[in-house]
């Protein structure tokens, strides 16, 4: 079972975190700081697995983002590595050549996709199609309310109340005002663009 998943940038900014085991806030911060240090210090040719505390950490770098999963002793490292890749593919397909900014601004979507893909630390569905179908359905339901929200969203953006990137909190603990939510980003059936993260990422 996966214990937690972190996304952070090369500069050490946490972009997304998902904890599958109840952990206190303090402990989380400590672990994140410690793990980021370890992972960021590693050179590109090093292997993607490391033993950290009593867990195994599997990480992979895509462009400027590190995707980092902590798994338990008996779990399979390689399949976790591919889990990360599948998640990136999902993001890529959903956002269309996803980049770090997409995840920063649409973190809630990134979380929803992750939720559809993983649940309680285990893979829920590995099929790209079915995950995306679920997300699209959800987006369609949102569409109903889109009209009323769209106007407000534009106004707020114009006023420049969008928080600075660095102060943007991550995690489900950041309830953005609904007015800022981006609506269904692209019409269904959009072509697969150049795969930004995937193309540059990996080795």
């Amino acid at each position, binding site marked *: *079972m996966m214990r937690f998943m972190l996304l952070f940038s090369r500069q050490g900014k946490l972009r997304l975190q998902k904890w599958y085991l109840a952990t206190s806030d303090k402990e989380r911060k400590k672990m994140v700081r410690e793990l980021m240090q370890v992972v960021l210090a590693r050179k590109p*040719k090093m292997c993607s697995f490391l033993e950290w505390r*009593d867990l195994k950490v599997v990480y992979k770098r895509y462009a400027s983002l590190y995707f980092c999963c902590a798994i338990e002793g008996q779990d399979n490292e390689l399949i976790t590595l591919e889990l990360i890749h599948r998640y990136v593919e999902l993001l890529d397909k959903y956002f269309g050549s996803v980049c770090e900014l997409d995840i920063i601004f649409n973190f*809630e979507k990134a979380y929803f996709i992750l939720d559809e893909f993983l649940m309680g630390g285990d893979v829920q569905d590995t*099929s790209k199609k079915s995950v995306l179908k679920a997300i699209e359905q959800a987006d369609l339901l949102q569409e109903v309310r889109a009209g009323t929200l769209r106007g407000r969203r534009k106004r707020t953006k114009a006023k420049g109340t969008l928080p600075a990137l660095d102060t943007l909190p991550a995690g489900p603990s950041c309830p953005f005002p609904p007015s800022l939510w981006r609506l269904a980003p692209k019409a269904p059936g959009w072509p697969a663009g150049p795969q930004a993260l995937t193309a540059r990422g990996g080795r």
Partner: protein
Amino acid sequence: MEAVNLLSSNKYTEKQIGYLFISVLVNSNSELIRLINNAIKNDLASRNPTFMCLALHCIANVGSREMGEAFAADIPRILVAGDSMDSVKQSAALCLLRLYKASPDLVPMGEWTARVVHLLNDQHMGVVTAAVSLITCLCKKNPDDFKTCISLAVSRLSRIVSSASTDLQDYTYYFVPAPWLSVKLLRLLQCYPPPEDAAVKGRLVECLETVLNKAQEPPKSKKVQHSNAKNAILFETISLIIHYDSEPNLLVRACNQLGQFLQHRETNLRYLALESMCTLASSEFSHEAVKTHIDTVINALKTERDVSVRQRAADLLYAMCDRSNAKQIVSEMLRYLETADYAIREEIVLKVAILAEKYAVDYSWYVDTILNLIRIAGDYVSEEVWYRVLQIVTNRDDVQGYAAKTVFEALQAPACHENMVKVGGYILGEFGNLIAGDPRSSPPVQFSLLHSKFHLCSVATRALLLSTYIKFINLFPETKATIQGVLRAGSQLRNADVELQQRAVEYLTLSSVASTDVLATVLEEMPPFPERESSILAKLKRKKGPGAGSALDDGRREPSSHDINGGVEPTPSTVSTPSPSADLLGLRAAPPPAAPPAPSGAGNLLVDVFSDGPAAQPSLGPTPEEAFLSPGPEDIGPPIPEADELLNKFVCRNNGVLFENQLLQIGVKSEFRQNLGRMYLFYGNKTSVQFQNFSPTVVHPGDLQTQLAVQTKRVASQVDGGAQVQQVLNIECLRDFLTPPLLSVRFRYGGAPQSLTLKLPVTINKFFQPTEMAAQDFFQRWKQLSLPQQEAQKIFKANHPMDAEVTKAKLLGFGSALLDNVDPNPENFVGAGIIQTKALQVGCLLRLEPNAQAQVSGALGGSPLRVHSLHPAPSCLTMFFQSHASALWPCLLPLLPPFCLSILWSSSPFPSLTFISPCSFHPLWPLFYLSSFTSVFPGPSHRGERGQGSGNVLPSQPTLL
């Protein structure tokens, strides 16, 4: 409140945001939780799959106990309901898994479990994937309920493995069919032993072979994802093969496959290959195959650029080490240590120390290795490591001289590590006399060498050196004046450190007040250390932490493989099992965590020192008012099942740990002389809670009463947590006897009564007195004793290669003298002894004829051991040999020299003054102690009578230093 309102909204957006809020608001606001639960319940009951999924996600995200209480009953229903949508089923399965992990007691098992298993047959791959996760977790707790899943999983797996890469459409990942599901299925199968049904098993083996075959095929894609997914399945397959550990063919194939990966250009694969090979090395079938890769692994250790890969390589070297390659591996690891990363140095030091000890054939090599270790990485050599070398040197006579010489040479280096000074100080203090004959290491030279390091050392080392000095005074009277001068110096007598000051004052007084006899008694050589689990191993385990990686398990599993590989591991206990008796835990609970070094060893010995004084008195003249307990056969329980096994460990040994469980440890020290014996039982309370009504009693079953007299002293009825109490048993053998007396220990621990019955390790051979005899004499008597009832013969097969030295040691431990050059066949062992009882003495001749052919070919037959006895009707002896032969002889032969079972105080080997606080004792307490002692033992004549060799277990044993 607003959020809860949102939950009950019909609009998806509102509901979604409501749920998002909830996952933030998890604090146990009871009122709110109730409302939330209500809303979730409504959603679960709704027919809208999207809403249901949202609710399930929310439950899984929160996963609290309250949620569990509210929904644990509903979710299984949704999971198996025929009309649930696939996506809902998936969510429900994982949600249930989450709740089960959070609070397993809340999830009721019921008829739904059978239907969950059938989800493995579901059409929808997503559902299967989710369900496998759930089943894997559930079946760990109730393996029997889910047994049916094996065949389903196997058939599912074989369908996936044999499918073409396009069959599964979206579930194919870079041309690999359903890698996640395959991995999960393989993991599920690892929860169970190999399937019993031959058809299922055949199908499974076929699957595993297919996976191994596929690894050899050219890749269908150049993408790294393709090979990763493929290899993920391969590694999981290999761990399943290792788990089954029953298919030599597959194991060797797996090993070869991993061998290929060892040189793969992908770092990840090299890392994983090293890791899996570590577990593979512990399997008896593949150990040899793993060993063929030793050069590659050593090369990896040297050239690999990634520290974590290097660490894996070091782990693997540790796992694949056995007697044949120990020297090579240890020297490679030592060489690597010089350049190793700081983070893993300590672990490597521990591993080197363990390997060197475990596979040492000659102990001079061991001593060299450890001293090298200290030289190379002194800072990383923890206390346990150098304690251990001291213990081994102390317990083994044959290396003491060599060790003294080597440390002396090592200390001559201009800069040597403090640990080296410690080891050197201790060894020279104990065995410096062995090299004093050489003018280059004469006593004054030894002293000045040590003293030249004195000022550079920390307080602890200085304290140790002071003890060494006082020992020097005893060993070399000619250094007395110099040393007294050093002790008298103001820097010692007025040292700011209270410990050093106290030692200086006490030693100075001791050296000037006490007579040489007293000095010799007090400062006698340390007795051999009792054998315990190697604290180094304990430390390595602790370092690895709970749930640590494979290396730890290897440690446990190794013995089996090494036995096969010609190692002569002791059967009852090995270094690598947690502790000699931990396997025999009376409580059958999980073994105690590796850590508990029980009460600090030094403290214990000190307690022993004090209790020795009074305990010794009755031995000289037991006062009539001394209340001896000799209870009749009361209502004691039968001996614990392991009692016989425990007893057998002591047939050839007098000291050791008789019994150990989580609460209590019973150690034995005993000594026998003619028909008398004295036994010390040490009861250690391993918990932190006081034992109440502690009462150990000795019971004589049957007519043993007339054969053996055992006098016990009462012990305190309370044993404090972490404390140890000692009981003295005086034993007299009246007649020959067969069954050992029973020891019944009863106490209350935390209110619950505990009782335990063990067999006391008193067997007839303890009263064996060795006798020397010439060859002619021997055979003359041997022929005389040829009546059928005068002979007992047992033919048995050796379980292990017979090593002459080991066998000799065992026979000596058995009690008879070994007669050299008596038997015309040099392979044979002959011995003679007299069994001493009060009523009569029985002469006994013994002959062991090892039969090498029988042992090699494994044919019937074996090595006869014959005992001829003078006594006309040695019924008891015959019976003893017959009944104990089966248990005794297998353990007789393979046992290594005692150190191998070993093991030790986990803290300081110096039961010194360190634990006496100066305020609670008079600074001159050793003198009081001395006086109490001398009144007990009137000087050397008494010692002479007891003999030097047996002095160790006498109360006069000088544990002062």
